[in-house]
């Protein structure tokens, strides 16, 4: 967290009120997204932020309309795939949750599930024999996976994709995950960082703003991921 003087904070608030943020963005503009696939991260970190983030990610991504569990089934009721998602944060300039969710969506799209041949039916409780292919992969269907839009309320307006300086004066932060169909898959309100209480109609307002912003974000993310995969194949 960066410390800011009162004058700087006032300047940031004025900018948001006038729809011109520190780097010239409008309130609802995201910074350019750059996707690189085919990279395996290594490393670990620990933070109390870590638990908050993982809880928020779970809540937002595992809502029923998120990842479709039936695509992970190998043998109904017996064998299925487990997905572990590790996020490595190399540097953070704010808006960590949105970036992580976008990265997860892109990574899952790049994930291949090996094709599994199941041996003939076994009786009762025995574990069926499975033959995991090394060659053939099924693409994971990520169209249902939501993106997370974190909205920060500053004064009377909302901003998305806040930088570290802007984050220092959020009065209320709500993270909403919306999928391609425009359905809300999960919602988290951050209260731990001095967020004030919210009137319910503000939350409804935020949801509609999030729906609007998520459309552009999903399209941008999909096109960037497709472009990255295309360059990877070259």
């Amino acid at each position, binding site marked *: 967290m960066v*410390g*800011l*003087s*009162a*004058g*700087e904070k*006032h*300047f*940031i*608030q*004025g*900018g948001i*009120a*006038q729809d*011109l*943020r*520190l*780097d*010239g*963005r*409008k309130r609802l*503009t995201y910074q*350019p997204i*750059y996707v690189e696939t085919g990279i395996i991260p290594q490393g670990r970190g620990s933070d109390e932020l870590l638990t908050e983030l993982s809880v928020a990610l779970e809540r937002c991504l595992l809502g029923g309309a998120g990842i479709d569990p039936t695509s992970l089934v190998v043998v109904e009721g017996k064998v299925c795939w487990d997905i572990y998602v590790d996020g490595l944060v190399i540097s953070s300039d704010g808006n960590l949750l949105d970036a992580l969710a976008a990265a997860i969506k892109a990574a899952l799209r790049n994930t291949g599930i090996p094709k599994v041949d199941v041996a003939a039916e076994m009786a009762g409780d025995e574990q069926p024999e499975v033959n995991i292919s090394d060659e053939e992969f099924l693409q994971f269907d990520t169209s249902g996976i939501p993106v997370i839009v974190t909205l920060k309320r500053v004064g009377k307006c909302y901003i998305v994709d806040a930088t570290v300086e802007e984050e220092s004066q959020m009065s209320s932060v709500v993270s909403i995950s919306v999928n391609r169909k425009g359905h809300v898959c999960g919602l988290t309100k951050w209260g731990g960082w001095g967020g004030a209480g919210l009137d319910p109609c503000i939350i409804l307002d935020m949801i509609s703003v999030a729906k609007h912003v998520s459309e552009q974000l999903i399209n941008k993310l999909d096109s960037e991921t497709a472009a990255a995969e295309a360059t990877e194949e070259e």
Partner: protein
Amino acid sequence: MRGLQLPLSQTQRTRLQRAFEKLQSLSSKANSDASVTVADTIPVNYEDAFLKGHGTTELNGELVATVCGVVERINKLVYVRGLRARYKPEVGDIVVGRVVEVAQKRWRLEINFSQDAILMLSSMNMPDGIQRRRTALDELNMRSIFEENDVVCAEVRNFQHDGSLQLQARSQKYGKLEKGQLLIIDPYLVKKSKSHFHHLEQFGIDLILGRNGFIWVGEHVETRDSMVVDKPNSSEQSMVLEERNQTHTPLEMRQNICRVANAVRVLSTLGFSMDADLIMETVELSSSLKIDIHDMLGSEFHVLVAEREAERRSLMGKRRR
């Protein structure tokens, strides 16, 4: 070319590469041998007596660099100046810092140096302008002048015998900076020049290039008259705050501030040395091409600025000959 984290298309990449190659070929011959990386041999005349300075070591009878940087020679001293090092203060430098602590009779400021710099209460101009002894009341009211996280502009006064750095803010042009934004870049990009305070008249903006890499872009302040009250007058202070809360920077000035700030960011990403003229030219380039303020941070504008700089330096070189 430093690792630019910009998504560049193939054509943009080639254009940028070409611009950088042109710039490298234009750099003066005298310096072309000067940049070294770790374990490079430094060309020295071994018969002369010379002193091995920082960043060098003797290996197998040869003088070898231990950091990546530029070889500097001063009389008999040979040393390597690292490029991305922390700020190295010199007396008389203008720096911009952030207050991290209010201590007894002094403030501690963060200035991207290996330690925090100290600004003594006695090195500050008191608001009434009279030179007088600081009373105990002044000490108690230090927070009314600067408090934690305030951005302050000051001058390097000296190094104390214990190695700590002392600042002073004696003239009217130094002091607290509000109504603007602070940018942090690498210190080596700000070269020593005649003036580090720039009042951009056509925009009504102050641009302060701190030699420690902290750059301030903000509304122009006419006189550095007090934010300080001599006697603790809380009602007056709260009135100032209320006024401040209601008046925001006008939109046009804010746009100009954003443009200048983005110009600084672009030049810093490309690794070009900053001076006010270059920043102004970059701002003018962006407005003349009708580039949106936020798009200034996009790849296309970066490539354009690099190409323009290569053009400018080659023209300068031709004029000299």
